[in-house]
């Protein structure tokens, strides 16, 4: 695997919902090497607070060497990132980690909750490579509300995918959680890809296991390095012991993971 550092220039910043942003940066080397499900480690600014880089999924890769990040402001790092307008610099390391395995035997279902949508768009793009359209593949998306969901939803349908939507407040699509949409579609699906909040992934993983459907999950942990040296990003695996999200993942087979209540 090859990793790069790039001092990237921000070319666009869009505010989706109030605290959700989409940032486009020029990072041609990372963009060229990126695979769906991989991530970048982002450093905002040169001061010592925040100190560590923040992991963000690669949301989109543009033909001109652009890279898109989709993120929600939840703290200091993402807060500073949201302040960066066009022309500002950010320091990226990537692409990192092991992404999604891309050869589904049969139709796929992509399930994204909240910012878990971020890596799935890139995946959805790549799954279309060398194919006329999404075929029987489909996309399930959930978010807090319409504002957060409408733009990403439009982009997925732009790729031709059939969409099933859910919002916490019912302002768009199903009033409730995404996994609730899964039961209807699961019988026709052979491969599920899921990224979102932990309880949602756990529920999807369970449903897939019961139905005997292959499921890949993209996990989050706190990461100090993203590069495999701190050993901070451990997750407990079903076989006993730990794996490291930044090197062994972030994407794992759902059955590999020891899901906690």
């Amino acid at each position, binding site marked *: 695997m090859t990793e790069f550092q790039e001092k990237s220039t921000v070319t666009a910043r869009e505010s989706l919902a109030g605290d959700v942003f989409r940032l486009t940066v020029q990072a041609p080397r990372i963009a060229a090497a990126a695979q769906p499900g991989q991530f970048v*480690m982002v450093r905002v600014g040169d001061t*010592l607070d925040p100190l560590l880089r923040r992991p963000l999924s690669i949301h989109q890769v543009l033909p001109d060497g652009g890279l898109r990040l989709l993120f929600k402001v939840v703290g200091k790092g993402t807060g500073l990132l949201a302040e960066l307008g066009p022309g500002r610099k950010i320091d990226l390391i990537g692409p990192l980690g092991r992404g999604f395995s891309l050869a589904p035997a049969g139709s796929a279902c992509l399930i994204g909750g909240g910012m878990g949508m971020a890596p799935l768009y890139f995946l959805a793009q790549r799954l279309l490579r060398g194919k006329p359209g999404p075929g029987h593949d489909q996309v399930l998306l959930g978010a807090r509300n319409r504002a957060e969901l409408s733009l990403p939803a439009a982009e997925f349908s732009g790729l031709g995918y059939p969409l099933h939507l859910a919002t916490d407040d019912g302002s768009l699509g199903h009033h409730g959680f995404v996994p609730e949409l899964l039961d209807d579609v699961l019988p026709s699906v052979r491969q599920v890809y899921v990224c979102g909040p932990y309880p949602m992934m756990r529920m999807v993983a369970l449903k897939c296991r019961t139905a005997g459907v292959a499921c890949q999950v993209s996990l989050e942990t*706190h990461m*100090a390095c993203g590069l495999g040296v*701190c*050993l*901070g990003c451990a997750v407990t695996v079903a076989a006993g012991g*730990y794996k490291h999200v930044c090197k062994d993942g972030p994407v794992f087979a759902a059955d590999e993971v020891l899901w906690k209540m």
Partner: protein
Amino acid sequence: MEDVMDRGGVDLRVRIGALHLRNPVLTASGTFGYGRELTAFVNPARLGGIVVKGISLAPRPGNPPPRVVETACGMLNAIGLENVGVERFISDKLPFLRQTGTRVIVNILGDTVEEYGRLAGRLAGVEGIDALEVNISCPNVKKGGVAFGTVPETAAAVTRAVRAAADVPVIVKLSPNVTDIAVIARAVEDAGADAVSLINTLLGMAIDSRSRKPCLANVVGGLSGPAIKPVALRMVWQVARAVAIPVIGIGGIATAEDALEFLLAGATAVQVGTANFYRPWAGEEIIDGIRDFLRQEGEPAVRNIIGQVRVDEQ
């Protein structure tokens, strides 16, 4: 040493007892893996050396997650000394390290004095190991879990056990969680340490107020990063005045400025830790920065500035 004079006409070589270093910048244990992970960003051959992740006799799985959390200008970790064990270290990790062209220092740890001795014995005669660094911040299982490094006698006992078994220089890595670190430093010097390195992490804690749970599954963890630099520098200064063996400075070093403070305070070399996480190339940058500083100051050799802090006005 291949390059007697570092590029740029400044002599960066230093000696830790019998261990000759191309320059005084090492990477700290647990922050640079086993040398292979960061080669996309740093050329190991340019470093003074690599201190590998702490190795124990048997492999250790480490602590449950969460294991790390960021704090103000620092981070807490409770990795739990996860490592592949000495056998897999020798078979899987050492071959790569050996051909990097830099010094390899193996950080070792154990639960009992005997374990430290056996580990040093196992590593004796193994080709490609330039020195041992003994992590005495670990809990002493036989003494109810009090860290070896907080009691002069147990610190000395570990040092003796390792020194007796080792065939390379022995660096004892001190814990900062003590009332008087100079006392511990003198104890390990008397017990035969060839050098001391300091500091290991400060014990710390963080709580998530919403969940009311500690941020680390292990409750407490080790604080590292720029936040601890003033404490580390003070301790290095104290220890450098208390012992005759070389001192290696560690703690929050991220820039050449930081490294220079430690050299001036009396460190013969420094280790870069947490900085590798957010700037994997920090070590090389620091070497370049030290060279630039020496050139600007008209100092032909880095040796000349070691311990040269001017406190005479006292």
